[in-house]
C-alpha cells in the first residue's frame, strides 16, 4: 500500500504507480494487484484513485463527442467519414437530412467524397463503429476555414475549465473556432492575421499543455503579440 510517485510527476508506460488495492483511473492498468501506467503522462493521485493524464494520446470515440471529419466514401445509404479514430465512422442518410427521402436519392447533393463535416457521435454500434449525425445547430458540411490538428489528449486543455481557455481565445482573436474532440480544429478568422495568431496560440497550448497556470500565460502571450503588431 504505497504511492510511488508524486502527483504531476511524468511517468512512462510500465511505471509502477501504486502498490496495493486502489481504484484505477484513466490510462492505467492492473497487473499482479498493482497499478501501472500505460501511457506517457502526468500521474494523479486523488479521490482514492490513481490516474494518468496522457500527454500523447490517440482518439477514442465517445458518444456525445463533437468531431471534425472528412467524407472518404459513399456506400449504400451511408457515408464513410474519417475522424482520425482507429475505425472510420458511419453517417447514414437518416442522420444527415431531417426529412424523408426516396431510394434513388442523390447522396452527393448532401455530401460528396472529400467534403469536411462537423458532426456529433450519437452512438457506437455493436462493432464499436461510431455513428455520426449532422442534424443540429452548427453541425454539417464545412464551407470555409481551415483545419489544424493537435494531439487529441490535449483538447481538454485547449477548452479549459468550463471553456475558459477557448472563450478567451475567441474573445481576443475574434475568430470562429470549432474544436473537434478528435484533435481537429476548424478555424475561420476574419483575416489571415487573426488566423495565424490562432494557430500560434494553439501550438503554444499544445507544447505547454502539461504546465499549470496556462490560461494566464496564454492571455499575456496574446496581449504581447497584439502590442507588437501595433
Amino acid at each position, binding site marked *: 500500500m504505497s504511492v510511488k510517485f508524486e502527483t504531476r510527476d*511524468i511517468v*512512462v*508506460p*510500465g*511505471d*509502477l504507480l501504486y502498490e496495493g488495492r486502489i481504484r484505477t483511473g484513466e*490510462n492505467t*492498468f492492473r*497487473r499482479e494487484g498493482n497499478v*501501472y501506467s*500505460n*501511457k*506517457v503522462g502526468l500521474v494523479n493521485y486523488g479521490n482514492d484513485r490513481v490516474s494518468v*493524464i*496522457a*500527454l*500523447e*494520446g*490517440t482518439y477514442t470515440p465517445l458518444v456525445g463527442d463533437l468531431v471534425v471529419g472528412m467524407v472518404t466514401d459513399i456506400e449504400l445509404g451511408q457515408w464513410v467519414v*474519417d475522424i482520425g479514430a*482507429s*475505425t*472510420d465512422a458511419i453517417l447514414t442518410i437518416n442522420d444527415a437530412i431531417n426529412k424523408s427521402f426516396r431510394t434513388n436519392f442523390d447522396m452527393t447533393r448532401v455530401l460528396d467524397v472529400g467534403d469536411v463535416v462537423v458532426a456529433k457521435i450519437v452512438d457506437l454500434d455493436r*462493432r*464499436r463503429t461510431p455513428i455520426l449525425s449532422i442534424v443540429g445547430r452548427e453541425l454539417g458540411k464545412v464551407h470555409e476555414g481551415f483545419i489544424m490538428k493537435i*494531439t487529441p*489528449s490535449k483538447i*481538454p*486543455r485547449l*477548452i*479549459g*475549465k*468550463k*471553456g*475558459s*481557455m477557448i472563450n478567451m481565445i475567441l474573445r481576443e482573436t475574434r475568430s470562429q473556432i470549432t474544436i473537434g474532440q478528435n484533435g481537429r480544429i476548424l478555424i475561420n478568422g476574419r483575416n489571415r492575421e487573426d488566423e495565424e495568431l490562432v494557430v500560434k496560440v494553439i501550438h503554444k497550448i499544445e*507544447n*505547454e499543455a*502539461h*504546465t*499549470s*497556470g*496556462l*490560461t*494566464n*500565460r496564454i492571455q499575456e502571450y496574446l496581449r504581447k503579440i497584439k502590442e507588437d503588431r501595433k
Partner: protein
Amino acid sequence: MSKKTKKKTTKRKSSKKKWARVDGRKPDELRPMKIESGVIPNADGSAYIEMGRNKIIVGVYGPREMHPKRFSKPNRGVLRCRYHMAPFSVDPRRSPAPSRRDQEISMVITDAIEPALFLERYPRSVIDVYAEIIEADGGTRCASINAAAVALADAGIPMKDLVSSCAAGKYDGKIVLDLGDHEDKKGESDVPVAYLPKIDEVTLLQMEGIMTQEETEKCIDLAIEGCKQVYEAQKEALKKKYGMVDEAEEKEEETGEEETVEEEEE
C-alpha cells in the same frame, strides 16, 4: 573449433598485455547512445536513435483503419512493422528493394514489440511502425526495437511496458555486450535479446554462431543487463521532450504566479 579459438586468444594475450575490444570498450559496456522522441511532425509518434554508428529513424502511425481490409482481425488490432535499410546505409550500396533479411527482421521486430501492446483494444485496426536504417553498424534490429518502443509511447499507444533490446556475443573468446559491426562479423557468436524491463520477460531471443550452454546463458544475462541500461536511456528520451517546458514552469512557481485550480476537464 574451440581449440582453435583458444590458441588464438593465448597468442593475443602474449603479444598484447591487455585485452581490449576494437573500439576500446569494456566487455560489458554499451556503445554511446542517443535517443530523441517526436522527430517526425506528421507521424503520430516517432523516434530517432543513434547506437554507436547506427542511425535509425522510426515513425508510428495509428491505430488506424487497416488497408487492405482483409488483413484486419475482428477481435484485435494488428501490429505491422517494416524494417528497411536505406541504400546508402551500408558500404557497398545496397538495393533499396526489401530483401529476405529485411522481411525476416520486420517479423522479428513485430513479435518482439507485440507483447507490450494492448492490441485487443483496437479491433479491425492496424498500428504501423516504419523503421528506416539510415546508417548501419551492427545490431540494427536491437536499435530498431528500442526506437520503435519510444516511438509507440510517443504516439500515445497504451503499452504494458517499454521494450528494450541489446545484443551480447562472443568475440575473441570473450563474452561481450552490444557487438558492433566488426565484432558481429568476425566474432564467434551473436545473441540479440529484447526484454520488457518492468515485467521481466524476454520477447526476442536469437542466436547465431557457436557457443557452449554456459556461455549462452552468460550472454543472455549480460544482454539483459544491457537492456536495463537501454531502458534508462529510453525513459530519459521520453521525459526529455517535456523537460524544457518543465523548467519554465518551475521558474513561474517561484514567482508565485501559479494557478491553484487545475483546468483539466471541460
